[in-house]
């Protein structure tokens, strides 16, 4: 239980709020590179503010406030030129640093121009996405996590959800929900609707643990029938502070990214790099596969017959901003408590004029490896196929390609799926 004041401090992300100031010390994906190649300017909303994002003719990216400093027309309807973005209304032009470099209709333009500046952030491409930083200079490094730079076949499901990013992050340090939401509830749905829910999610949690680390919080679990020697405890997987969770297993490495669009809207992405053991070549990709996963039906009911749809139900049904003054949390929620404390401590650092110490780096690195279990829930090809068919990947236009990748890798490893349906399928090559 929190006081209303503390809940507000943890959930308000706009400019000038304590959490908003902390979150502005980090990079966020705001678009796919594919989208900027199809049309070079795009409106993006991040942390309660609107921006114009554009791709320069040289191949870089710029991001400035959406409202033109002249008379507030949208720069999204501007003209991309060699040295900047020109407003479509009166032709004022801004470079990637926000400097006004042309005011075609003005006299004595040098003095007036020097006095006008648009707010500009920074934008870079990584892993087929354009990432933005809208905090104070100097910007930290954009962390190049393994999942974004390693070879593999990349598939990204995403949707805009009507809730605070914080309740999604709290779910990332709540291991017990797996055996109930994805275990018992899924089994119940299967019994009602005539399908077999994945067994690997039904195992009881015997022990959970949380360790603070450089990039966030490392989460561990011991499941029934397993020991502390198994990957789920010995390795675990991390909440990546402040907006992601790294998870994986069976040749799938995933970053779940929760972009705080504003206080009550989150862009929730499942960025998956498929590289199962047994294969060293994958179908060629110019861009990652990207698509929207469905989470609500035409009657406004949650779609809950797949893993992420169940998570979305839990996140969104808590309300736009969960009322934490009315909660009753217990010892099994200690991961949630640890995360709230970590946010509060990092907010205090920023309030004191210091850099955050978690999930933040000024050291350039080509690849940052995160700890993540390989043998999640002790399963192999069956786990991979369940991930594809019972997860948001079922909405992917590349679903069949992904099945074939995992089946061919399994055959190369000498592994056979237990389902006859998959045993007869042909590999992709």
């Amino acid at each position, binding site marked *: *239980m929190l006081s209303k004041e503390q809940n507000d401090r943890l959930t308000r992300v706009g400019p000038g709020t304590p959490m908003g100031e902390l979150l502005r010390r980090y990079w966020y994906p705001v678009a796919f590179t594919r989208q900027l190649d199809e049309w070079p300017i795009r409106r993006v909303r991040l942390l309660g503010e609107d921006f114009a994002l554009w791709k320069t003719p040289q191949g870089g990216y710029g991001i400035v406030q959406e409202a033109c400093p002249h008379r507030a027309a949208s720069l999204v309807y501007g003209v991309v030129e060699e040295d900047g973005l020109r407003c479509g209304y009166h032709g004022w032009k801004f470079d990637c640093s926000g400097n006004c470099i042309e005011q075609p209709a003005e006299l004595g333009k040098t003095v007036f121009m020097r006095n006008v500046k648009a707010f500009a952030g920074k934008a870079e491409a990584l892993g087929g996405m354009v990432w933005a930083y809208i905090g104070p200079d100097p910007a930290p490094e954009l962390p190049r996590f393994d999942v974004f730079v390693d070879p593999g076949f990349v598939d990204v499901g995403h949707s805009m959800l009507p809730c605070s990013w914080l309740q999604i992050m709290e779910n990332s340090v709540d291991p017990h929900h797996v055996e109930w939401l994805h275990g018992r509830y899924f089994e119940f749905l299967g019994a009602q609707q005539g399908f077999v829910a994945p067994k690997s999610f039904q195992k009881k949690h015997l022990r959970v643990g949380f360790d603070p680390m450089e990039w966030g919080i490392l989460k561990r679990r011991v499941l029934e029938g397993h020991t502390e020697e198994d990957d789920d405890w010995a390795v675990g997987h991390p909440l990546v502070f402040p907006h992601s969770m790294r998870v994986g297993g069976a040749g799938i490495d995933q970053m779940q990214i929760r972009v705080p669009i504003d206080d009550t809207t989150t862009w929730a992405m499942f960025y998956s790099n498929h590289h199962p053991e047994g294969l060293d070549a994958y179908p060629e990709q110019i861009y990652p596969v990207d698509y929207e996963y469905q989470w609500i039906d035409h009657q406004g009911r949650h779609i809950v017959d797949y893993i992420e749809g169940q998570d979305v139900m839990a996140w969104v049904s808590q*309300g736009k901003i969960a009322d934490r003054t*009315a909660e009753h949390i217990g010892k099994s929620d200690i991961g949630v408590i640890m995360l709230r404390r970590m946010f509060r401590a990092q907010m205090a650092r920023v309030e004191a004029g210091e850099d955050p110490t978690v999930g933040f780096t000024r050291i350039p690195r080509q690849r940052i490896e995160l700890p993540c279990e390989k043998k999640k829930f002790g399963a192999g090809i069956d786990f991979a196929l369940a991930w594809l068919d019972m997860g948001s990947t079922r909405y992917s236009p590349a679903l069949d390609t992904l099945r074939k990748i995992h089946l061919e890798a399994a055959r190369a490893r000498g592994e056979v799926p237990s389902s006859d349906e998959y045993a007869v399928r042909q590999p992709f090559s």
Partner: protein
Amino acid sequence: MTEGRLSGSHWWDQDRAAHLADRPRFCPGCGGSVTGSEGISVEYWEADRRVYHTWCSSCGWAGNIVRIQRMVGHEPED
């Protein structure tokens, strides 16, 4: 708090006010405030014990503060 949606909180407003009144206001380490902007105090339950996990931004003290109704010694053997 939750716009356009009843969270049920109005059903136990009195209880909620009592819980908020019980929470620690000052750090056991330095005496600084741990409410509002100066720290964080999260109440959770451990069986019948109400525990306030508390962190002070002034001195960095962190720990659990437990509200008790009665001092209890050894449990009687069956």
